[in-house]
């Protein structure tokens, strides 16, 4: 008790003396002590010893239940963050049921190895302008993020995480030839497309965005000079995604955005994906 409690600190929880603890000279409150213990002072007037037998049983059972719950929870979280092992292979489902979604966590911070390449996401758009179509050049969206981050002591999640994590999300749920490989595939694609549409739209290239195309440009960070510099392959590798049609719903404000009013919903039947 000592360090936390007792008379220390708020000491005082004065306690009424109506009720004297069985074993103690200490006067312990009835209701008073409760609060007393509730207080930082936590005077020792309560606790399991202040209870009569039936209540002690309840308290003891609760102690056991709480203890077991805490232990199980920590065990589950441990199995969740630990590498796949004998136990988690057998009981992976139970672990997931317990931990997901609210206790999900990942602490492989820069581990086992830090990211050693800059992955830039670039986009271009096909616009309709005055009856014709025009394709913009590649616009480096990640470079725009980086420019905003420069000199900013409090970078926003919008610049630091949005595009970066969306690309990871997309890459995790797609095969190397850019086909969705799981339930989240379609979602991740739509997400990425909407981010790109949002960013390109802000560029005001003029005209209506009909389609967009994305690619990633990956370039390794040059290894430090004192290690094996020179061996690093610093060429840029591109991963080019197919052209995606953009629907009105992909643009900021969704379907009710004023700018989309001109477009008939059925104009792009292929978009429905």
């Amino acid at each position, binding site marked *: 008790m000592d360090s936390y409690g007792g008379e220390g600190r708020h000491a005082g929880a004065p306690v009424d003396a109506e009720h004297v603890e069985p074993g103690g000279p200490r006067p312990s409150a009835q209701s008073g002590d409760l609060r007393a213990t509730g207080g930082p002072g936590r005077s020792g007037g309560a606790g399991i010893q202040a209870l009569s037998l039936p209540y002690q049983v309840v308290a003891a059972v609760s102690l056991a239940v709480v203890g077991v719950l805490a232990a199980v929870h920590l065990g589950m979280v441990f199995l969740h963050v630990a590498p796949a092992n004998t136990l988690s292979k057998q009981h992976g489902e139970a672990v997931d049921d317990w931990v997901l979604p609210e206790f999900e966590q990942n602490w492989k911070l820069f581990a086992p190895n830090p990211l050693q390449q800059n992955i830039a996401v670039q986009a271009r758009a096909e616009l309709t302008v005055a009856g014709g179509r025009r394709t913009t050049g590649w616009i480096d969206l990640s470079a725009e993020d980086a420019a905003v981050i420069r000199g900013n002591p409090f970078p926003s999640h919008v610049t630091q995480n949005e595009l970066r994590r969306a690309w990871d999300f997309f890459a995790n749920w797609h095969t190397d030839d850019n086909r969705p490989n799981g339930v989240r595939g379609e979602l991740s694609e739509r*997400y990425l497309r909407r981010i790109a549409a949002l960013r390109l739209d802000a560029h005001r290239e003029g005209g209506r965005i009909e389609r967009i195309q994305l690619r990633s440009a990956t370039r390794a960070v040059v290894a430090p000079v004192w290690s094996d510099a020179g061996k690093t392959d610093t060429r840029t590798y591109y991963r080019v995604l197919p052209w995606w049609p953009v629907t009105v719903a992909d643009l900021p404000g969704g379907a009710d955005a004023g700018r989309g009013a001109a477009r008939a919903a059925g104009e792009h039947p292929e978009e429905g994906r």
Partner: protein
Amino acid sequence: MKRVDHGVVTVNPRADLPGGSHRADWAERAGRGLAGAIQRVTAGALGPYQSAVVRIGFSGAWLLFLLREFPHRRELYGPDGPWSWGMARELIANNHAFSALLWSDSAVWFECVYALAALASLLLLVGWRVRATSVLFLVGVLSLQNRSVFMGDGGDNVVHLMAFYLVLTRCGQVWSLDARRARRRATGTGPGGPGPTPDGAAPAPDTTDSGPDEAEAGPGGTEAGPGAAETGAAETGAGGAHRPVAGRAAADRVGPALWVVLGCGLPVATSFAGRTGESWLLALFWLLWLAQGLWWVVCRYAPGQPRVLLDVLANLAHNAALGVIMAEVCLIYATAGWYKVQGDRWQDGTASYYPFRLDYFTPWPALSGLLAGSGLLIMLATYGTVVVQVAFPFTLFNRRVKNVLLAVMMLEHATIAVLLGLPFFSLAMIAADAVFLPTVFLVWAGHRLVRARDRLRPARRGKVPGPREADGEPAAPRTLVG
């Protein structure tokens, strides 16, 4: 303190083994130790300063984050987001996470939730009705983060976890408005004047009753186990329980009112159970709310043993949650450290060079470049990081080493905040680390703050707002957290 020892002896009446063999001695001592431990975890909510600093740290970090992102809120979690409401709904239909934002896609509702989340953070920060505001804080955190999971990073993740654990801790025992209210009640009505009333003084009927009651009611009630209403409960309870006295402090109406208001939200949450939120979470909300009601009723009508029992239960929940918080922090560092050990770059001492070259993590390229240019510095930072992270959980067995490492880790996080442009992540991690700060240090820091504030506003009260500096801290024996 001694009381406890005292109690222990009582509870565990000296096993009278006439012979007093060694084994019997040993068994007796073990038994006494166990009984003492049980008494400890049931009689008090351990680590009041640590739990308070965790509360302040996380609510503060989240509040700052919400304020900083205010201009971007609609893109992050709202109607302008690339992660649309429909997509969130699709994902959540799959993983059943909780987000009140899924109750409606209206922009007004979104603004309300965002504002409420910020307000709950502020109230939790200052420790106003922490039982209620900690739950609101949790709802705010979950609603926003689960609405757009792909916007978050490690910092959001810790906040998410700790928001859960905080709900179960009595985190407003010190450094909170709850505690101040309790103290004021105590000093206002109590016979003992500003000082704590000694136990012995108790019998003074009216005043003392309300004295202790309120006094600790605040904390006990307000932060103790259950939530919103407890304060109200506690106080009214006080009145009801002991002969009510005309002159006593006005009964608390805010607590019960808050309880009723929050109670209205529960059926709504339940009605959307099919859309968002796992059933255990809704059950938890109901349970917390009912516990508040029970607390109030018990205080009022059954102030004796049932009341003590409730307090025991609240202490158990608090102590378990605090233990889980500490274990969680250890898990974070252990995971981060052990996975790093396996990486080539951490082994060859170059790992910390790379983040300084990543476009997304170099707000100060010149500075990063400068540091990245020094091979020795990089190696020391790389090895140092791994050593500290792997070692940290084990240093808990040695208070001095633990404190040194704690300082090192906080410093490292502060550095990360600046160099990698991750201020909120770092703030959250520092708040998590703070659970291991020694009580003496926290008390000392509290004093300094209070004194500094008093110096700034000499006109106002001469003393005390903070934790009652008083007694015994320094002498406190050391524990894991202390």
